């Protein structure tokens, strides 16, 4: 930043320059490791890329890579659709569960510190390589399914068993799709719990910032717990529902177990077709952005802001 010596800077001008100095690492990184690669990868996706000993060279193929993704590759469309359906089923469950867990952890009870430590354990222990290994692991998945059976065939809990529950719900004439969703949720409980560590933290932080005077007023007016929840807690926490939905969507699309991620990596490093890999990465990225846009659009209309 070059400053002419004669004109003196205002205080605001000085502060602005200091601000730029503080964020200068980010500005460099943004240009070198984000914007530039992003532009490059668009260019790559329209080309065939060949790595040579001194660099790489590009052969322009137009929309060839995209055509291959949509029309030739037998797996790509299926895998993307699967990833999206998986996301659509999991995200509501994760958000609801983490909200519920945060409400639980926000109450006073003995051993709360321990319970909190355990609830956040998945953030630490089921990340990266651990979850990838776990997913491909036979014993753990066997143990998990036998545990789910066990937990639900016990005399006390027999009502919750997915099959029993399904029959019960069927008898109550509910929409079968909805029933499938509920029972599927019970079968997926472990995945949902392990994916919601960060979200629980965010909700918990939000619950702690709700002003107690609101509850005080509500109690004076004779509100029940149910009313307090829907009239105070829920609106106050609604901006965080948006934050968590966004976080969960991104998390579900970028976790290492995601099939599309695997495809992109394989296309680049097993088949060395870098151009094709860039193209499917871009298709995927645009899909993610579209879904994110729709979700944010729907939710942010209903979010309540205090200001």
């Amino acid at each position: 930043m070059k400053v002419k010596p004669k004109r003196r800077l205002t205080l605001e001008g000085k502060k602005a320059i200091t601000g730029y100095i503080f964020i200068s690492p980010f500005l460099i990184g943004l240009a070198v490791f984000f914007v530039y690669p992003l532009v490059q990868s668009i260019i790559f996706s329209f080309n065939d890329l060949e790595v040579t000993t001194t660099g790489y060279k590009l052969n322009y193929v137009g929309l060839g890579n995209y055509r291959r993704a949509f029309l030739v590759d037998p797996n790509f469309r299926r895998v993307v659709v699967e990833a999206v359906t998986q996301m659509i089923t999991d995200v509501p469950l994760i958000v609801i569960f983490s909200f519920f867990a945060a409400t639980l952890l926000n109450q006073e009870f003995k051993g709360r510190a321990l319970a909190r430590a355990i609830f956040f354990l998945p953030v630490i222990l089921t990340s990266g390589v651990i979850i990838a290994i776990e997913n491909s692991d036979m014993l753990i998945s066997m143990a998990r399914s036998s545990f789910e059976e066990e937990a639900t065939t016990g005399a006390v809990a027999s009502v919750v068993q997915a099959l029993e529950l399904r029959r019960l719900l069927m008898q109550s004439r509910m929409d079968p799709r909805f029933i499938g969703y509920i029972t599927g949720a019970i079968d997926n409980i472990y995945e949902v719990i392990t994916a919601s560590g960060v979200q629980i933290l965010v909700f918990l932080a939000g619950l702690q910032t709700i002003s107690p005077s609101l509850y005080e007023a509500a109690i004076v007016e004779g509100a029940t717990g149910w009313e307090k929840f829907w009239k105070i807690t829920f609106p106050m926490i609604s901006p965080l529902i948006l934050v968590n939905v966004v976080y969960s969507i991104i998390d579900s699309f970028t976790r290492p177990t995601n099939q599309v991620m695997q495809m992109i990596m394989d296309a680049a490093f097993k088949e060395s077709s870098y151009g094709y890999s860039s193209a499917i990465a871009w298709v995927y990225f645009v899909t993610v952005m579209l879904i994110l846009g729709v979700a944010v659009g729907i939710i942010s209309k209903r979010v309540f802001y205090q200001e």
Partner: protein
Amino acid sequence: MSSVAMERQPAVTRGKARYSYFPLYRLRQLSWSVVRTILVMGICFVILYPLIVKFSVSIMDEMDLYDMTVRYVPKHFTLKNYETVWEYMRYPEAFMNSLKLSLLTSITQLISCTLIGYGFARFNFPLKNLLFGLVIAILVVPPQTIMIPLFLRFRFFDVFGIISALRGETLNLLSTYWPFVFMSATGMGLKNGLYIYIMRQHFRGAPKDLEEAAYIDGAGPFKTFYRIMLPGAIPMMVTVFLFSFVWQWTDTFYSSLFLQKLWVLPTALSSLVPNVSKSYSAEQLGMMVYLSPAYASMLNNTGSILVVIPLAVIYIFAQRYFVESIERSGLTGM
């Protein structure tokens, strides 16, 4: 912790106390606390269960896996799995490399993200909102989108053509720590957008009076930052450090992208089973030996335990900071 929470919610507790002489209310309270205990214990169990299974499998002999009468407690206790995994993961080497890598990146990320976060929180400059929007954007873009350009950039590394002019060729920085250092120092590493966001929220919530006092006493912005603001931010920095250390420790994406030849724990764990079966095949004079799925899974579980143990130790010491600092930071108020 609990004292803070109690201070913050006096109304609710007082409200409850007012009604507490009604027996019905008492009963409701009691039954809810029973239900809550069951729920909390149930969820804790679901979280801990795979860990318990992993551990119990890791100390079993292979024959215990096929024995229907064995559940959780092994009949043939053995540490043989640990020996095998230790050897094939080349654990000491992988551990040291991972430790170096994780410490290096998390400390660099901590410094850069704290600086950037402070810049966004306390100074006004043109395009600030746009730039902060880009911080969020780097979180949203899947790293796979920019993976290949990054890979090529570090494979043929050059700064404005200077290096190729000096050496006659570009540098190959793959399988070194440099890509991680460069990306961390510029706030572009793994999930760094999140850390910048956390630090910015923290500094926004910190009181301005101290800083103003420091300015009046003649301290410049950097001295103020270093002497006044940093000490208050330590719990938050521990949190960011913990996040970045842990996620780097288990990260497969960047380590498989940049470190194909450097032996780190995630690589060691994901190539454990192929390596063991390859070496058994070599013993059988080239006959291909496939490990039984149960045995492979046993090795994987043992390996996971070995990868996770250091993290568990750190977590035990740091979890207080971790939970509390996020709660108090006002992380959530935009």
